[in-house]
Structures are given as C-alpha cells and as structure tokens.
C-alpha cells in the first residue's frame, strides 16, 4: 500500500485531526480527574478505594494524550495506515444520515418505531446516495424509500414485540403499528 508521489501530494494533512484526538484524550483525562476528586477514597481493607481506578485511568489517558500530541509535533502518528476512502469528507451526505439517526432518536416515542425508522431510512438513503454522486432522489423516489423503510421496519417491529416480547414504541397500544 505505497501511495504514488502524486497521491501523496494530494493526500490531506491528517495532523490537525490527529492533534484534535490527542487534545480529546487530555480533555477526557481532565474530566475524569475532576470527577475522581469528588469520589470518596474509603479504602477499607483493600488499601485502595473507589477513587483509585478513576485516578489511574485519568493519569494514563493524560500520558496517552501527551504522547499523541508529541507524535503529531514530530511528524504525525507512527505506523499509520492510510484511511480507506476519499481524502475529503462528504459533509452533506453525513448531514443527511445524521439527520436520520437524530430525528429517529427524537421522534421514536411520539410517532412510533415503524414510522420513525422509516423516516430514518429514507433520510439515510438520501445521504448515502448523495455520497455516491447520484441524484439524491425526487418525490417519487422519496416515497419509494419511505415505503421500503416501512417494509423493513414493520416485520422487525412485529418480530420483536409479538414474538420476543421486547418493548418497542408504537402509536397505538395494539402492538401492530
């Protein structure tokens, strides 16, 4: 997997993102330390209490964060496998898929599992289609996607609620929709 020189020139600089990952590790470490300070250290016979591991994890993550940042400052991550896929992200496609997942989370209890999942499906398909550079779909296509979503979600819903007695939200109490 040796990229040609041209590909190398076109390859994006991953270092800002890598730096962000390092900083992220430091932030998590700081949050852990802040929380650990509030945990009592009653040790009993063990010599270490419930705050021991939090401090260890916080310290370790802080060290990892510092070392990640050091690697970035000295030329970037070591032994990096070039990530698969395009050099640049397709943010519009991501936005569609994200909208699907988030709306599903927001609406599932009000409009029920089947409709909410069908909505998620239709939006995600739009996004994924956009990422392939195809037209994201006109009204007709959207209706088709929504129906496909219902056709997938409904049997799943019946299987889980009727056969496996797993609680999934519906609009009616009948357990069918």
């Amino acid at each position: 997997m040796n990229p040609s020189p041209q590909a190398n020139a076109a390859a994006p600089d991953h270092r800002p993102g890598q730096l962000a990952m390092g900083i992220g590790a430091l932030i998590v470490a700081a949050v852990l330390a802040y929380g650990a300070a509030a945990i009592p250290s009653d040790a009993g016979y063990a010599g270490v209490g419930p705050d021991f591991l939090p401090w260890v994890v916080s310290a370790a993550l802080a060290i990892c964060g510092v070392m990640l940042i050091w690697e970035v400052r000295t030329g970037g991550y070591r032994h990096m496998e070039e990530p698969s896929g395009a050099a640049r992200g397709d943010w519009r496609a991501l936005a569609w898929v994200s909208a699907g997942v988030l709306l599903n989370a927001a609406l599932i209890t009000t409009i029920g599992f089947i409709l909410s999942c069908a909505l998620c499906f239709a939006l995600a398909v739009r996004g994924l289609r956009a990422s392939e550079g195809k037209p994201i779909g006109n009204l007709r296509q959207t209706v088709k996607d929504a129906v496909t979503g219902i056709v997938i979600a409904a049997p799943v819903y019946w299987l889980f609620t009727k056969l496996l007695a797993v609680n999934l939200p519906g609009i009616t109490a009948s357990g069918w929709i």
Partner: protein
Amino acid sequence: MMDTFNQLLAGFATAGTPINLLWAFAGCALGTAIGVLPGLGPAVTVAMLLPITGQVEPTASMIFFAGIYYGAMYGGSTTSILLNTPGETGTMVTALEGFKMAKSGRAGAALASAAIGSFVAGTIATILVTLFAPMLAEFAVKLGPPEYFCLMLLAFTTVSAVLGQSTLRGLTALFFGLALGLIGIDQITAQVRYTGGILEFMDGIEVVLVAVGLFAVAEALYNALYEGRSEASMNKMNKAHMTRSEWRRSWPAWLRGTAIGFPFGTIPAGGTEIPTFLSYATERKLAAPEHKAEFGTTGAIEGVAGPEAANNAAVTGTLVPLLTLGIPTSVTAAILLSALQNYGINAGPQLFQTSSALVWALIASLYIGNVMLLVLNLPMVGLWVKLLKIPRPQLYAGILIFATVGVYGMRQSAFDLFLMYGLGLLGVVMRRYDFPTAPVIVGLILGPMAEAQMRNALSIGEGSFMVFLQRPMSATLLAVVLVVLVLPRLLARLKGSAAS
C-alpha cells in the same frame, strides 16, 4: 475422560432437540449472511439481538449466538474472495490470495478450500475445546483474585498492544473503554461514579450500546462521509470445486492453520488477525518451489486454506477462556459474556458445574453447526453471493434500523439513541485516525471485573501490592504481560516480511 464423553453425549441430546437445531440453523444462516455483508459483523449482530435474552431460554440463545459468531467467519471469506473487501477482520488475509485466485478464474477452488478448511479447523478446534476446557476449568477453580486480575491485565495488554498498528493508540482506546466502564455504581462499595446526575448513567453504559454505536452506526456514517466514490468490482463466481492437486495442497495448510489458530484463540491474546497473518507467512515459506510463484500473482490456494483454517480455529479457541475463566478475548466473546450476564449466569470455572447442561449443549452445537455451515457454504454459496447485490445506500440505511432495535430494545430509552449517535461519530474519527476499536469494548466489559478482582486481591494482601508478586502464578502472569509487550515488535517484523 469417560465423564467428558458422557456429558458431551448429554449435550448432543440437548442440542439435538428440534427447537435447538432450529436455533443453531438460524444462527449459522444469519452468521453466514452478516459475514458476507460488509458493514455488519458478528459482534454487532449479537449485540443487536441481545434483547431476545429476555424471552428465549439461555441454552437456545447461546447456541444461536455462537452460530452467528463462527458462521460469520465462513461467510466473511466469501466476500474476501469475491469482492476484495474483507467481510471480517479475520478474513483480511484471505483476500490477499483468494481475490487473486478469483481474478484468474479459480474463485470456486478458493471458496471450496476456505469452506472445507473452516470446517476441518472448526471441528478439530471443537474437539480440543471438548478435551481441554473441562481440565482448564478444574484448574481455574484454584485461581484467586490476584491471578484473575493478572489474567485480565494480560487480556488488556494483548488486545490493545498487540492488535492494531500502534501500541500508543491501542492503549488510548483501552483507557477510553475503561473510562466508560467507570460510569455507574461501583461494584464493591456501591459508590456512584461519573453519572453527572443523569439517571440513565446510573446503570452504567451497556456494551451493546457502545458496540452498535462504534461499529454499526460508525460504519454507516463513515460510508456516507468517505466511501461514496469507492468502487468495488466483483469477481466472477464459478462452481465450488477443487481438483485433486488442490486437495493435496490444501489439507496440510488446513492442519497447520488449525495448529496456529487454536492456541492463539485460547490464550488471552485475542483476535483472529495475528494467527491468520502467521499462518499466511508460514504457508508462503513452506510452499513447494513450483507453487511459490503463485503467491501474490495468480493466487496460491495454500494462502487461502491456511488463514481460513486459522481464523476458524481461533474463533472456536476463544470459547475456552470465555467458558472456563469468564475472560473474553474478542469483541464478540465480550458480548457473549454480557449475554450470559443477562441471564444472571456467571461465566467462570464454576460454569462447568453450575451450568454444565448449557455448556455441553453449546459445545455439542458447535459440532452440529460446523456441519450445517459446510452445507450452507458449499452447495449454497451462490445464494449468499446474491446478498452482495444489495445496493450500498439501502444496506447501510437498513443497518441503522437494526441498530435502533438493538439499542432501544435494551432498555426503552431514547436517550440511548442519542448516545449511540455520539459513539458513532467517535467511531468515525477513530477509524479515520487508525485507532483500534476492540480495546474500547474489552476495556468497557472487563474493566469493572478487573477492578473488583484487584481490590479483592489487595484485601487479601492487606492493602499491599506485593500480593501480586508473592504468589507464583500471578508473578508468572505479570512476567508474561511484559513479554507480550515486547513480542509485537517481533511479530511486526514477521508481518512486514509477509506483506512484501
């Protein structure tokens, strides 16, 4: 020995009931399907189906889940050979030679060698599990908290330092997983930690949620963001069939692959990647001079047979530490463990006594499942290949629906769905910057267990950390941990020579 045999027979009686056979078949078929489909692995699938533990009895659901687990290894090879995008990480190496074989018109031979090799390795490995697991369990009963803690430390080290490219990134992922595991109520003192006053955090973060977010949702998001323009070309299928000379070349590779794969599965060194790479390197070195030229050019059948046997043997091998010690060494094993926990069953050395019916039925179902998978994957391979025709947008959007079922069905909380999305985003950046995700899962599930063992061990040692050095077993294990930290450098060199 006689005792083992009798219990195995009883296991066959349980596993052979029509309803359990049906569960085994459903698991194998579903496992093959998700193995073939890119984007869904056995871990996520089992995770999404965990809600069924509320309704289905333990033996049936464990048989079902185990079928998914090793079925995925059979199916994954099909995708590796035909599509060159491995369906599973364990079948990555298969793509090296298998795809080239398929390109030069020998797809059928590659598929046959992979399926039969998986069967041979899976069956031999199951025999080894049958023989050794009860012995190991008997021995493991004598282990105390210090030894357990060191074993878990070993699992942490291997999963984060050995797998993946960089020890630093592996450890970062591991500690992040441990941090997630801290959220909730401390097992020993019932102290509440890191809930930030959010009620949902009181019960801790479920492994299902993290696995589905980090793998399934991340996969869909990553695909939308980066993979839209990646074109995959599919190789032509032909009849799954091997010539006499291909048989002769395959079977020693199967046996060697099994011999390499099984031990790697059993020790807490986790994962199927290393044994498959090792097996590939071995086959390449041992290949007869007249076949050596096929490696990397037209595709050598040994390079498919060996790694395919190795990954199946390793997968079966991971059941040994899971069932005898309660220590998962792969992501899927971690989720199987949480399935057992859902039933209130404590995996560990006592399992062979307290739930012996379940364990032996599970082992018997492995024998049965391997036969089913051979049938599912040889004559019926054409059926599974059709799955690869599902258009990408519909496939990933559909995965999101199943992700919702798994996560929401777990405890009926829409909050979890938002969390799932957040973890999905995390999975995207982790993949982009080459952080391994398996350590997060293993850290999350083993972390709380390791913490409890450590504090119990320290209580035994009256608060002194010397307790870990004074006991011979735990001191040895600590030494092994050190060796494991050095070994990867050596393996990296091997890997380098295999790739060049």
